[in-house]
């Protein structure tokens, strides 16, 4: 477990995750109070990574449940392995024949089989899915329920039950209770509002796009080969572009991709042409690309005008333009 907020920050740093006090406080609280964390925020700001890094920092297993539309209990909790059951019945046909024996009526035969159904609904044929894994795990674990907003409200309601007492009942087997309450991280991109009941159960953490300083720190950490000047320029451009009204605002992942690509191309610093050529790394839609370029051009023009006003004409102001 974590010993303090600072301990969280340090352990996360060791696992290469930059985490401010606000985030660390929530993580620490979650582990102290044994409450799930609901992390909300735009895509690509490190929500999923937060869960992964928590597991790594504590040396726990990470159990991940990726949500999607139509996800149901069977896929999240457990399923019976019908194919296997089927195979066994086939192989054991004779044995089954014996059990039924000379039952005088069909009803009698059915009753006799019913007496034996324990055999087929035992651990042997149970296929545990992430939630059951987390509940039955012998070791402490971190349970990541990723993109819960993609699942349906019905699933959310079901989840609420599991999270409220960390016990799961399998009608054929009885009730399983978690030996270790896992640290639970739920993430949401706000595709829909979560129910009040779920929110009540969780601590809440909102992660927004990072400030320029923090983003620079992350870039340096995750792309160690990046040159200082390039890193600063990339972050400056991305931060600027986030002001534009885009369909998909570039996130930390895009910044990292861009910095990595440019570093691979052995670029030391950005210029207008390079930006034009590679901007599609961070802007995926045609319309966004256009808007992004406009935003940057306007920004550059303003910079140039300012530079012209403050320095003597003929100075090479282009060097600093992207800042």
């Amino acid at each position, binding site marked *: 477990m974590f010993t303090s*907020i600072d301990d969280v920050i340090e352990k996360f740093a060791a696992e290469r995750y930059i985490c401010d*006090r*606000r985030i660390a*406080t*929530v993580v*620490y*609280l979650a582990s*102290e*109070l044994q*409450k799930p964390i*609901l992390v*909300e*925020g735009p895509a690509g700001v490190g929500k999923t990574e937060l869960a992964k890094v928590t597991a790594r920092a504590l040396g726990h297993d990470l159990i991940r449940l990726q949500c999607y539309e139509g996800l149901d*209990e069977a896929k999240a909790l457990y399923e*019976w392995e*019908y194919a296997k*059951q*089927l195979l066994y*019945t*086939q192989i054991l046909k004779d044995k*089954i024949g014996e059990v039924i024996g000379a039952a005088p009526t069909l009803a009698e035969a*059915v*009753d006799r*089989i*019913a007496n034996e*159904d324990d055999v087929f*609904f035992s651990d042997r044929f149970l296929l545990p899915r992430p939630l059951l894994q987390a509940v039955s795990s012998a070791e402490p674990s971190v349970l990541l329920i990723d993109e819960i907003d993609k699942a*349906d*409200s*019905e699933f*959310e*309601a*079901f989840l*609420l*039950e599991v999270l409220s007492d960390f016990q799961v009942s399998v*009608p*054929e087997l009885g009730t399983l209770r978690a030996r270790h309450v896992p640290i639970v991280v739920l993430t949401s991109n*706000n595709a*829909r*509002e979560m*129910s*009040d*009941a779920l*929110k*009540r*159960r*969780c*601590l*809440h*953490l*909102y992660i927004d796009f990072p400030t320029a300083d923090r983003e620079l720190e992350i870039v340096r950490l995750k792309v160690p080969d990046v040159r200082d000047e390039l890193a600063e320029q990339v972050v400056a451009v991305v931060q600027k572009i986030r002001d534009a009204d885009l369909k998909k605002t570039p996130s930390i992942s895009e910044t990292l991709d861009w910095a990595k690509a440019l570093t691979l191309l052995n670029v030391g610093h950005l210029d207008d042409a390079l930006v034009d050529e590679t901007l599609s790394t961070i802007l995926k839609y045609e319309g966004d690309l256009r808007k992004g370029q406009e935003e940057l051009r306007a920004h550059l023009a303003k910079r140039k005008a300012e530079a012209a006003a403050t320095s003597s004409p003929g100075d090479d102001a282009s060097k600093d333009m992207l800042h």
Partner: protein
Amino acid sequence: MDDKIVEFISLLRSNGLRTSLSEDLDAFAAVSRMGLGDRTQLRDTLRATLVKSTLDIATFDELFDLYFGGLADAMKQVETASRQALQVDDGDYQDLIDSLAEILEQMDVDLSDLAQHLLQDDTGQLERRLREAAREADLGNIERSFQEGRYGHSVAQILGIGGLAQELERLKEQLGDLDPDLQERLAKLIDQRLQDLTNMIKRMVRLELQKRDQTLRENQRERSLEDKSFYYLSEEEVRQMKEAVAKLAQRLKNVVAIRRRKGKRGKFDVKATLRRNLQYGGVPFRIQFDRRIKDRPQVMVLCDVSDSVRNVSRFMLQFVYSLQDLYARVRSFIFVSDIGEVTQMFEEFEIQEALDQSLSGGVINIYAHSDFGRAFRTFHRDHLEAVNKRTTVIVLGDARNNYNAAHEWVLRDVKLRAKQVIWLNPENRLTWGFGDSEMDRYMPHCDIVEECRNLKQLYAVVDRMVH
């Protein structure tokens, strides 16, 4: 500390940030676990436990600063100003305070607690006294700036400023034997401290007013949207309203989802499984769980989209759309004079597209003159069969019928067959039955009739429906 948190939570509540009891308990547990720490840590702790919606974070932060930072900061400012007035720097000031404390001890004077806190510059204790007095004076009820004087006065009285002033006067006299220079400086300090306390009270009252002002502002914005008639909305309000209706629909969905959980995954049913699998030679191909069979509700919604309710019908339809999304068995109709079914369309298209199409005239002529009677008769002819004792029929409309025949007998027939008939009217109840409104004729054949002019009423209707 707990008291402060309780008070803070009620401040949040009065600003529309509702917390549940379990969240309040979490906040207490978290704060006691974390220790007091610095202000930032307290804020992060309270925010994580009490604020669950991203939209509320800004309000929370502002209120936190006002509440936990406000008074302490204001007191600090008063003290800074006081040093300037005395023309001393921090070091000199502390020396002065220390020497006064020493002299008081030597002279063995018996001072009141308040005088001691004040003269020894014990900001923490002073803050506590100020807050206590504020509570006793019901400072939280302040609403307007002209009340500042009155509240300031009563806080001062509760603190006992009058008595304090006399006490300090006597003290100054007792200092008479000292070296005149020192005596003068101490006398000035004492006067200044009394002045400081008065200033602190003033600042505290002002701060409180700011908090309430914000409360008022926020509440008014929300309340006005909730109370605003669907008929008169600005463009911005239309946008907000759409969001609100969407939220309402989501809430509805969540409630229903949780309710449905009660019918859990059933137990494996051996007998039924074997019975079902006889055709496969008893090999269980298809598994049968026993499930409680639920009495599935059916809803039929008839939504008026005529000109007289143009503004309203979009919200109504949005609401109908979400209903359909929610319950599997909803059939949606729109009508003016013709009536047309849009169930299929609502299923196939995204909400915006579906609404646009319904209101574009493709399904029915929406520029016709309203004729509820005709629309009802058509419904009677084509769809009465589908109404049965599990069906709830909801009519959304103003019942303004252009003096056409009302044909209320249709509703009577529907009511006989249906589980219930609900009529939601977006017009003010006072106008029902006047002019071409046929509400009086329709009402007797409905089980529930509600005015549904604004968001608040729509909320109420929904609450009734899901509970």
